[in-house]
C-alpha cells in the first residue's frame, strides 16, 4: 500500500475543504477502498475519514425516509422504519456481503464500491476501467460474472451492489454536497454505463460528498421479493439478482417496480417490463411476457451466455414470489 496522509475532520465543511486538494479520497467503512489500496488499484495520497460527520441516521421526512450516507448496511437493514415501509431495501441489504462487512459498510460507500471484475483487480492485466486505453481482458476472457446489458467495447463489468438494485427500484434520490452547495441526483442517473469512459462509475463530481439517500413514500410495503442467484447460498456476489415490488388491488397490479443486479454496469431498472405489467393481473403468463420485454437488447460474451436464460427466469420467479 502506498503511503497516505490521514485526516479526520469533524464537520462537512472541513471534509469538503480537505478533499478538494490533490489525489484524495473519502474514507467511510473502507471495506472496498482499503481492499483496492492493498491491491494497488487505488492509491490516494490522502484519506479523509468522514466517520465523525453526523450523517448516520434513518429518519422520517415529509415525503418519505432519509437515510444518512454513513448509516451502516446492517443498521438500515434492521431499522424499524425501513422494515416497515421499505422492506425491499431490507431484503436487498440482507442478501449482500457478510454480517461483519454489513456492520462496517455504509450506504454512501455501497454506492461508491467498484466492480469486482477480476481483471480490474489484477494489475498485471489490461483493464480500461483501471488503466484507460489498455483494453478489456474480460471480453474474450473469463466473463462468467459479467454484464449482458449496456456494455461497450471498452468494458463489460457489472456493479456489484444489492442495495443499489433496491434503491433504483424505489426511485430513491441521492443527496450530495459540494463546494457550491447541495444537489439531488435521481438514483437511476447516479451510476452510469461504461461507454467510452469506463473509468467513471458514476456522475458524482470531484470533491462532492454523498450525504444522504431519500426514498419517497410508496405503497410497495406488502408484496416484495429480492431474489439473488449466486454460486453459494450466502456471501457471494450475484450472478443475477432481481428486486420486485408490487402494489396489488385484488389480483390486479396497480404499481410495480423491477430492477436487476449482476447484469450491467449500473443497477438495471426494467422500465418497459413495468409499463407492460401495470394494470395487468398478477399471473405467470404476464410475468413471462414482462421478462421477455426486459431481455430485449441483452448480449452475452461466452461464459455468461447462461445469464440470457437465468435472467428472465429470475424475473418471473421474483415476481411470482412477490405476488404470492
Amino acid at each position: 500500500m502506498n503511503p497516505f496522509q490521514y485526516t479526520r475532520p469533524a464537520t462537512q465543511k472541513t471534509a469538503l475543504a480537505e478533499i478538494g486538494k490533490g489525489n484524495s479520497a473519502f474514507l467511510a467503512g473502507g471495506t472496498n477502498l482499503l481492499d483496492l489500496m492493498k491491491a494497488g488499484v487505488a492509491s490516494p495520497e490522502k484519506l479523509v475519514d468522514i466517520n465523525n460527520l453526523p450523517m448516520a441516521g434513518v429518519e422520517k421526512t415529509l415525503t418519505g425516509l432519509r437515510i444518512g450516507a454513513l448509516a451502516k448496511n446492517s443498521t438500515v437493514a434492521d431499522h424499524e422504519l425501513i422494515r416497515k415501509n421499505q422492506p425491499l431495501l431490507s431484503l436487498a441489504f440482507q442478501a449482500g456481503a457478510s454480517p461483519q462487512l454489513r456492520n462496517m459498510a455504509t450506504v454512501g460507500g455501497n454506492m461508491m464500491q467498484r466492480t469486482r471484475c477480476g481483471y480490474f483487480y489484477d494489475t498485471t492485466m489490461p483493464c480500461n476501467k483501471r488503466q484507460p486505453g489498455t483494453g478489456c481482458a474480460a471480453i474474450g476472457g473469463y466473463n462468467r460474472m459479467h454484464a449482458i446489458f449496456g456494455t461497450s467495447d471498452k468494458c463489460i463489468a457489472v456493479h456489484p451492489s444489492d442495495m443499489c438494485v433496491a434503491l433504483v427500484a424505489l426511485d430513491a434520490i441521492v443527496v450530495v454536497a459540494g463546494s457550491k452547495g447541495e444537489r439531488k441526483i435521481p438514483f437511476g442517473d447516479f451510476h452510469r454505463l461504461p461507454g467510452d469512459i469506463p473509468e467513471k462509475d458514476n456522475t458524482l463530481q470531484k470533491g462532492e460528498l454523498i450525504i444522504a439517500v431519500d426514498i419517497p413514500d410508496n405503497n410497495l410495503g406488502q408484496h416484495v421479493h429480492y431474489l439473488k442467484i449466486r454460486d453459494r447460498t450466502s456471501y457471494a456476489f450475484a450472478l443475477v439478482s432481481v428486486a420486485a415490488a408490487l402494489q396489488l388491488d385484488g389480483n390486479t397490479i396497480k404499481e410495480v417496480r423491477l430492477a436487476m443486479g449482476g447484469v450491467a454496469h449500473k443497477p438495471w431498472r426494467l422500465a418497459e417490463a413495468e409499463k407492460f405489467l401495470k394494470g395487468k393481473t398478477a399471473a405467470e403468463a404476464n410475468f413471462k411476457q414482462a421478462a421477455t420485454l426486459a431481455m430485449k437488447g441483452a448480449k452475452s460474451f461466452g461464459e455468461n451466455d447462461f445469464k440470457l436464460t437465468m435472467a428472465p427466469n429470475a424475473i418471473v420467479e421474483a415476481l411470482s414470489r412477490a405476488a404470492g
Partner: protein
Amino acid sequence: MAENCKPASLATLPENPRRTFLKQSSLLAALAFTPAAFINAGGGGEEIATTLEKMPLQVEINGVAHQLQLDSRVTLLDLLREELDLTGTKKGCDHGQCGACTVHINGVRVNSCLTLALTTEGKKVTTIEGLADGNKLHPMQDAFIKFDGFQCGYCTPGQIMSAVACVREGHAETPDQIREYMSGNICRCGAYSNIVDAIVAAKQGGHTI
C-alpha cells in the same frame, strides 16, 4: 517479540512532524513507484521509512488502554498481531473474504483486516484473548471444544468472535439463521455442522453469551 523480529514495525518508527511529511509527500509518491533495488542502491531504504508520518492513536483493547503512534497504513489486524502480540486474531485472506480476523469494535463484529487502526480512535476492541474471564473460558469457547467445532483451528478465533456476536445480535434463533449469519466465516476443514451445534448449545446453555 524481539525488535529484530518485526519486519514491518511501522508503529515504532521515529516521529516526524506533519510539515516535513507534506514537504516530502511528492518525493514519497515518486519513491513508491520506484523499484526497491533502485531505492536500496541509493541507500534510501531506511530514509523512506523515517519519512512516513505517524499518527497518534488511543484505543482500548481487551480492557487495556493503549497510546500508540502509527503509520496510517497499519490495519487493526496488523496492529494486534505485529505490534501488540495479540496473535489469536488470524490473518487469513487479508481481503475481508474469510472472517478469520473477526474482532468486536464497541461490541460490533467487524473484519479487522479491512479496518485501518487509526479509525478505532477512542473505541473498545475485543479480541479472542479478551473473551475468557481469567482462566475461565467463555461459554462459546467451551461449546466449540465440547462440540468439536474445529479441526485445524485457524479460523476458530474468528468463528468464536462471530458466533458470540451472532447470539448477542439475536441472529441465532434457528440453525438456518445461524448458517446465514455465520456465512462471513469460512472454514476450510468443513467443521460447519459442529460449529452450528456449538452455537445452538452455547445459546441454550443458560449462560450469558
